């Protein structure tokens, strides 16, 4: 692969490099996982482990079985094709390299999710996919719409992530381990555990938000604000399936109960039916595809509800089918957008002549999506019907839901892949032209794979689907066979009904869209509900800010000290810690002098109206404290105290020059209340000090430092030796804080000066 020639500038060359290196990485990883096909097909499970945070029992353990291998191959394979596509799609974009960084980060995180064998590691990767998804949806960050969509996706999936974390901790507590392979072995114990229901609810919250199940589905159509390759990769083929992966992974542990069965059935079926109606109501190609993705996610959830071989096989197969055709169609939607300048189906038509290869790829992918033989989609659909009829809940309702959804899928496939290419003529902003090979490679390969796997289903059945079904059911269920022709049976008849119904609906599409739009206008709008929810948060936040952050210094001081008074004073009284006043020994003259100095300084501060006098009074208090240190033999502390006190007085004096002079009673309406309050605080602090000093003191540390300071650190000044030797790391942290604080204050003050000229030193 030669570097691209279309970026002539030097920056362009380095950008192209960023693209190609991502493609190479994804391809290499794909090849690596390809190696695992043999062992996994033979029934093996690969596991790697290395300790990460041993003290918390977290290890970097990775497990590759049929389920994770299927996902890993989809992630790396589609990833490589999408990245190749993006090198052209985003060529010349100012943030080209950044895009590939995000995309690669996402790919690695997603691989982490599907291969982690430790639940906590899985969670870390899970959150990383949410964050990279946020960055990618908001990639065009100049648009308010993409920012909103990105934030919405982040908040919804992030909230689900928090629920998942709580679920993981509960599960780890119930099972005594975070290793999935060990948890899987104790499924029965977990299902009978008292915490089963909370664990299940929290896990499902995580999975449903990530995989956009009702009622958390609204973020996914909005996520289409992302560049099209991102939609193809994250929001149809991989990331949104992380929730599906989680449910599949937890199947041996959490499934086989009525709650599981009915929750997943209802959520899955309603998402699938709702989304397929919404899909045919849309006019934007990407929106149609987004809703059909929702339908697919709903269907997958629906089949994971059950605990029968047919249903799980249907889920595994449909997972692969869907990823192949949906990624292809999204990439094709991107091609159409790129070469015509619009994605509105009403403005598109008759593109087949200008874009023959795209048309062919679209047709192949759409036939698989609509479920025509001999494509893999047909096998997937047959299995879905067989699975639906085998579920333990309500086979006929489930089958009806699947039938309706599939028929509408056919309509959507027709809208996306036939209407723009064949019917009528186009009136597009740009003259359509065929896409370059790098953009065609992805859709063509993916569409061809759909046909190839349909004709020879053993290619995926043996190495992926069967081991996958075994992984999901912990080896208990027998995978169903993937066959194109299984004889005339109920699934085949249902397939015929689906196609007939779908074709009829395709012809009735325009009136149907009007009816659906009318219904939609009257429905509760989840998206607006989300805005209202956020607004209510903001209202609460600004309300409590008004109360707590009044901007008035007096209130802050009152709040802080009132908290201290209640918390500490209350504890003193509650615990009965006050041991009474100790006997005070006879005081010498020097003690009296220091005490009087401090009291006089304090009194001066409270009565004066001059700021300078008040500062000087405070300085006197500080000097009194320094004298106490001298009397009790801590000269280092005393010197420091004196110097700091001096500097603070200078600083205050400089600052006070700018403040207006105080008039009597200025800003202090309740001096009596202040006095009572201050006295109470003083009393509580005094009581604490007396209580602390009358208690026994542990002198072991003192003894140690007195010894070790000379013998080990060769210094007689214990205070300084502790500072620079024993606790040097602490001191380093402290001086770092001093330096940062000084520089922060300096830059704040600098920023305010009206002088626009930086001084000579800074300009360098």
């Amino acid at each position: 692969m030669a570097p691209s020639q279309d970026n002539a500038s030097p920056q362009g060359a380095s950008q192209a490099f960023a693209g190609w290196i991502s493609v190479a990485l994804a391809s290499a990883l794909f090849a690596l996982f390809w190696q695992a096909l043999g062992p996994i097909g033979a029934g093996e499970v690969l596991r790697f482990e290395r300790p990460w945070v041993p003290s918390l029992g977290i290890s970097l353990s990775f497990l590759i079985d049929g389920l994770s291998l299927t996902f890993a191959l989809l992630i790396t394979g589609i990833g490589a094709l999408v990245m190749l596509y993006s090198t052209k799609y985003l060529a010349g974009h100012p943030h080209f390299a950044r895009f590939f960084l995000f995309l690669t980060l996402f790919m690695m995180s997603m691989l982490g999710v599907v291969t982690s064998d430790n639940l906590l590691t899985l969670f870390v990767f899970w959150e990383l996919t949410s964050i990279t998804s946020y960055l990618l949806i908001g990639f065009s960050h100049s648009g308010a719409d993409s920012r909103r969509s990105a934030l919405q996706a982040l908040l919804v999936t992030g909230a689900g992530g928090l629920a998942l974390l709580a679920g993981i901790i509960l599960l780890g507590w119930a099972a005594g381990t975070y290793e999935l392979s060990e948890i899987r072995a104790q499924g029965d114990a977990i299902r009978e555990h008292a915490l089963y229901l909370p664990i299940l609810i929290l896990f499902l919250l995580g999975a449903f938000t990530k995989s956009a199940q009702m009622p958390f589905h609204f973020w996914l159509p909005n996520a289409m604000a992302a560049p099209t390759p991102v939609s193809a990769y994250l929001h149809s083929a991989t990331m949104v399936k992380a929730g599906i992966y989680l449910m599949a992974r937890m199947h041996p542990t959490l499934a086989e109960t009525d709650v599981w069965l009915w929750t997943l059935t209802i959520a899955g079926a309603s998402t699938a039916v709702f989304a397929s109606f919404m899909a045919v109501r849309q006019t934007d190609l990407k929106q149609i595809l987004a809703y059909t993705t929702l339908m697919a996610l709903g269907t997958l959830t629906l089949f994971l509800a059950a605990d029968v071989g047919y249903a799980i096989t249907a889920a595994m197969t449909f997972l692969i089918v869907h990823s192949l055709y949906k990624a292809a169609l999204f990439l094709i939607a991107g091609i159409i957008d790129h070469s015509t300048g619009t994605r509105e189906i009403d403005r598109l038509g008759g593109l087949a002549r200008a874009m023959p290869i795209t048309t062919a790829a679209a047709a192949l992918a759409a036939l698989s999506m609509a479920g025509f033989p001999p494509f893999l989609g047909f096998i997937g659909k047959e299995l879905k019907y067989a699975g639906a009829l085998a579920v333990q809940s309500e086979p006929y309702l489930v089958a009806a839901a699947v039938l309706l959804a599939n028929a509408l899928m056919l309509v959507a496939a027709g809208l996306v892949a036939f209407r723009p290419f064949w019917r009528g003529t186009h009136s597009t902003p740009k003259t359509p032209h065929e896409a370059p090979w790098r953009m065609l490679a992805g859709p063509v390969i993916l569409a061809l794979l759909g046909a190839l796997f349909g004709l020879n289903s053993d290619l995926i059945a043996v190495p992926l689907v069967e081991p996958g079904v075994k992984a999901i059911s912990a080896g208990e269920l027998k995978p169903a066979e993937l066959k194109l022709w299984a004889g005339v049976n109920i699934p085949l008849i249902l397939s015929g009904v689906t196609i007939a119904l779908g074709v009829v609906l395709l012809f009735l599409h325009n009136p149907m869209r009007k009816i659906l739009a009318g219904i939609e206008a009257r429905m509760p709008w989840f998206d607006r509900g989300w805005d209202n929810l956020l607004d209510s948060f903001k209202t609460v936040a600004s309300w409590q800010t008004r109360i707590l952050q009044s901007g008035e210094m007096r209130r802050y001081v009152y709040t802080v000290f009132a908290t201290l008074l209640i918390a500490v004073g209350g504890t003193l009284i509650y615990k009965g810690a006050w041991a009474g006043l100790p006997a005070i020994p006879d005081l010498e003259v020097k003690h009296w002098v220091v005490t009087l100095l401090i009291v006089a300084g304090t009194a001066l501060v409270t009565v004066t109206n001059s700021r300078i006098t008040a500062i000087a009074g405070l300085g006197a208090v500080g000097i009194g404290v320094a004298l106490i240190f001298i009397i009790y033999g801590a000269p280092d502390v005393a010197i420091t105290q004196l110097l700091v006190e001096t500097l603070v007085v200078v600083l205050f004096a400089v600052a006070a020059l700018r403040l207006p002079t105080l008039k009597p009673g200025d800003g202090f309406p309740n001096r009596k209340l202040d006095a009572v309050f201050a006295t109470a605080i003083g009393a509580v602090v005094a009581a604490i000090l007396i209580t602390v000093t009358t208690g026994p003191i542990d002198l072991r540390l003192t003894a140690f430092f007195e010894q070790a300071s000379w013998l080990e650190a060769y210094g007689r000044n214990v205070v300084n030796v502790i500072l620079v030797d024993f606790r040097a790391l602490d001191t380093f942290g402290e001086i770092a804080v001093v330096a940062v604080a000084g520089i922060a204050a300096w830059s704040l003050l600098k920023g305010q000066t009206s002088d626009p000229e930086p001084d000579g030193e800074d300009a360098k």
Partner: protein
Amino acid sequence: MKSVILRAGARLLVALLLVFSIFMLLRGHNEPGGGFIGGLIGAVGFVVYAIACGTSEAREALRVPPEKIAMIGLGISLISGMMALVLGGSPFTGQWLFIGATETEKGLPLSSVLVFDIGVYLVVMGAILALVFALEEEV
């Protein structure tokens, strides 16, 4: 404050305070003193000078911008802490060299601890002066 007496006195005081600050820094290991106190005294010296003669003259006398002094000090402390890594041992372990040591005399003790303390001195002095100068220029 353009008093001639203060200005003349300040020049003398600054010199005295600076010498004293270095004295405090060096004796800190065995007697009261150390980098923190030394840095404070040094800062006070320049603050006095700034009050007497204005900040621009004080800045000139200091030659290096105070915020740079603070950062350099932080770097020196970090390097002295990392010296232990190079010489074998945990970071921030004091490393000692006794020049001319005999059986009875320990000779001239040199240590990474002193280097660390010099870093502390510079950080404290630089950070305080950065703040005070900026504050005074603001007024």
